[in-house]
C-alpha cells in the first residue's frame, strides 16, 4: 500500500502519468481526425495521395519565372506559385528593410518635420489592415496609370501602363555564360584585392586606393569579355504598337520584361506595411544605444558617419535582429494575401488546383509544409547571423 502510494506521489511518476495521458489524448484526437478524414475521402472517391499532381493543369498563370503553359502539370503549377511567393517575399524583405531603416532613422532625425512625418507614416500604416492596404494600393495603382493603349516612358527604356512596368529583357546568347564567369571572377579577384588592401592598410595606416581596381574588375572585365566573345547578350526591348486594331495596340506580348501590376501592388503594400514595423524596431534598437556612446565617440574625434557605423549600428544590431527576423517571417506569410489581388502565389495557385481537383487535404498540406519550411529556413539564417553579431558583443 505504502509502495503504491509513494509511487503515486512520486513527481516523476506523476509527470510520466500526465505525459502518457497527453500522448493518449492527442493520439486519440489525431486518430479520430485521421479516420474521419479517411472515411470521408473514401466515401467521396478521393483516394489520398499525390498522384493527381501529375495531371494536366489546364489553366493559365499570368506570371511564371519558369516555363509553364496550360499543358503543364499541377505539380508544375504549384511550383510556379512557390517561385512567385519566393520572389515577392525576397523583394519585399529587401525593400521593406531599406525603407524601414530609412523611416526608423528619420524618426530620430533632429529635424522636427522629418521626425513627425516618419511618426505619422508609422502610425498610419501600422494601424490599418494589410489586406485593406493591398486592395487600396492595387486599385489605386490600376486607376492612376495610363490604360493599355498608352504609356508613360522613362528615357525610352522603362514604360508604365496598366499592364505593368515594361523593361528591356536581357536575352542570353550561347556564350553569355562566359560573361557570367568573368563577372564572378572579377568579384572574386576584387574580394582578394580588398583583403590585400585591408592588410596593407594595417601596415600603412592609409588604405591604398583600390576602387579603380574594383571598377575595372567588376565592370570592366565583363564588358571586355562581352565584346571579345561577340556580344552574346542582347536586349529585347518592349515593342509598343501605336496603330492597328485596338487589341493589337499597346505593348506586344512577349516583348521586353513585364512586371505585372499585381506584383507591384502587392510589393508596394507589403513593403510599406512591414517597413512601418521595421522602422519601430530600428528606432528602438538605436535608442537602446546610450547617448554616452555617441558622446564618447565624438569626443574621440570620430565623425558622425563613423560613429554611426563603428559604434551605434553594431550595438543596435543585436537589439534589432531578433524582432527583424520576425518581421521577415511575417512578410513572407503575409505575401499569401496575394490571393486577394490575383497575384499567382502559392496560395492562389494552390486554391485553383484545390478547386479543380477537390483535393483539400493535400493542397492545405502543401501550403503548410512550404510556409513552415520557409519559416524554419529564415529562422536558421537569421539565427546564424544573429550569433555572429552577438559574438562580437560578448
Amino acid at each position, binding site marked *: 500500500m505504502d509502495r503504491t502510494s509513494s509511487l503515486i506521489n512520486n513527481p516523476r511518476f506523476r509527470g510520466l502519468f500526465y505525459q502518457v495521458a497527453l500522448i493518449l489524448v492527442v493520439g486519440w484526437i489525431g486518430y479520430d481526425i485521421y479516420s474521419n478524414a479517411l472515411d470521408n475521402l473514401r466515401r467521396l472517391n478521393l483516394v489520398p495521395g499525390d498522384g493527381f499532381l501529375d495531371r494536366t493543369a489546364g489553366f493559365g498563370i499570368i506570371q511564371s519565372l519558369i516555363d509553364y503553359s496550360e499543358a503543364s502539370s499541377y505539380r508544375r503549377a504549384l511550383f510556379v506559385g512557390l517561385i512567385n511567393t519566393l520572389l515577392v517575399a525576397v523583394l519585399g524583405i529587401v525593400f521593406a528593410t531599406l525603407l524601414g531603416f530609412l523611416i526608423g532613422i528619420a524618426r530620430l532625425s533632429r529635424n522636427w518635420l522629418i521626425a513627425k512625418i516618419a511618426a505619422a507614416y508609422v502610425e498610419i500604416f501600422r494601424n490599418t489592415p494589410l489586406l485593406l492596404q493591398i486592395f487600396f494600393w492595387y486599385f489605386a495603382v490600376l486607376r492612376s496609370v495610363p490604360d493599355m493603349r498608352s504609356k508613360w516612358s522613362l528615357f525610352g527604356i522603362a514604360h508604365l501602363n496598366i499592364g505593368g512596368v515594361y523593361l528591356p529583357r536581357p536575352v542570353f546568347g550561347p556564350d553569355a555564360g562566359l560573361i557570367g564567369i568573368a563577372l564572378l571572377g572579377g568579384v572574386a579577384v576584387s574580394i582578394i584585392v580588398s583583403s590585400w588592401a585591408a592588410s596593407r*592598410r*594595417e*601596415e*600603412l*595606416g*592609409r588604405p591604398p586606393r583600390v576602387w579603380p581596381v574594383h571598377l575595372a574588375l567588376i565592370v570592366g572585365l565583363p564588358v571586355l569579355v562581352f565584346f571579345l566573345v561577340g556580344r552574346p547578350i542582347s536586349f529585347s526591348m518592349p515593342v509598343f504598337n501605336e496603330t492597328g486594331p485596338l487589341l493589337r495596340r499597346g505593348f506586344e506580348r512577349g516583348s521586353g520584361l513585364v512586371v505585372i501590376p499585381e506584383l507591384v501592388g502587392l510589393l508596394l503594400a507589403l513593403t510599406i506595411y512591414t517597413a512601418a514595423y521595421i522602422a519601430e524596431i530600428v528606432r528602438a534598437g538605436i535608442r537602446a544605444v*546610450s547617448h*554616452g*556612446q555617441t*558622446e*564618447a*565617440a*565624438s*569626443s*574621440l*574625434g*570620430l*565623425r558622425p558617419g*563613423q560613429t554611426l557605423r*563603428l*559604434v551605434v549600428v*553594431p*550595438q543596435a544590431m*543585436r537589439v534589432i535582429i531578433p524582432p527583424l527576423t520576425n518581421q521577415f517571417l511575417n512578410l513572407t506569410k503575409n505575401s499569401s494575401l496575394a490571393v486577394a489581388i490575383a497575384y499567382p502565389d502559392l496560395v492562389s495557385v494552390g486554391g485553383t488546383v484545390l478547386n479543380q481537383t477537390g483535393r483539400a487535404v493535400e493542397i492545405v498540406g502543401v501550403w503548410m509544409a512550404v510556409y513552415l519550411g520557409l519559416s524554419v529556413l529564415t529562422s536558421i539564417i537569421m539565427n546564424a547571423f544573429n550569433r555572429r553579431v552577438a559574438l*562580437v*558583443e*560578448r
Partner: protein
Amino acid sequence: MSDVSAAPGEELAVDRSKMRVSSTEVAIEMVDVNKWYGEFHVLRDINLKVMRGERIVVAGPSGSGKSTMIRCINRLEEHQKGRIVVDGKELTNDLRKIDEVRREVGMVFQHFNLFPHLTILENLTLAPIHVRRMPRREAEEVAMLYLKRVKIPEQAHKYPGQLSGGQQQRVAIARSLCMNPRVMLFDEPTSALDPEMIKEVLDVMVGLAEEGMTMVCVTHEMGFARQVANRVIFMDAGQIVEQNEPEAFFTNPQHDRTKLFLSQILH
C-alpha cells in the same frame, strides 16, 4: 590596490617636481562664455584661461554647470555667446576646427562609456586607426603601451563588461591617451566607482599630472585637488565664483558660497 578604504585621496604620493606650468602657452581660453538651455541660463560670463601644463580642478554644487562648462570645451555642447579657444583654434560652427579640437582634447566620463561590443584593445585602437589613420599594428603597440601605463595590459582581449568599474575607467583614460591629446578633460571620473576602485583611478590621474598633462577635472575628491591641482575653481549657479590655489582655496575660502560648500564637503 586592495587595502584602501577610508579617504583614498589622502594617501596619494605625489611628486610635484615634474609638474611644470608654461607661463606663455595658453591651452584653453574661455572669454565671456554664455550658454542657455532653452530659457535656462546655465553658463554666465565664464572667463577662464588654462595654461599648458596646468591642472585645474572644478568643484561646485550639483547643477552649477561644471559638466556643461567642460563639455563646451570639446564642443559636446554649443555655447551661444563668447569665445572658446582651444590650442589656438576657436570653436565656431566650423566642423573642421571642431574635429581638430576634439582630436587634441581627450575626455573621460563619469560612466566610462566604453564600447561594449569591442574588446579593450579595439576600444583603444578605434580612434587612432579611423581618426588619426594610424596603421593597426602601430595603433596596437601604442594601445598596449597605455594599457601597461594604467596597469591592465593583461585585459587587452577582454570585453568591457568583463572588467570591474575601476578597470573600465582606467581603460577609458587609456583610450583618451591613445589619441595623444594635449588636454584632458575629466567629468567626475570616480563618482560612479566603489571606494576600493577610486584609488586605482586617481593613481593613474596623478601619474598623468606628474607627466605634465594639461588637465581640467570636475571632481569632488578634495584630496586629489589638494595634492595635484594648481588651481581650484569653484562654480555656482553657472558662474565661476572663486578660484585659487588649492591650499589657499581650502584653508581660506573667500566667498560665502565657497565656505558653505566646503563646510559640507570636508570632514
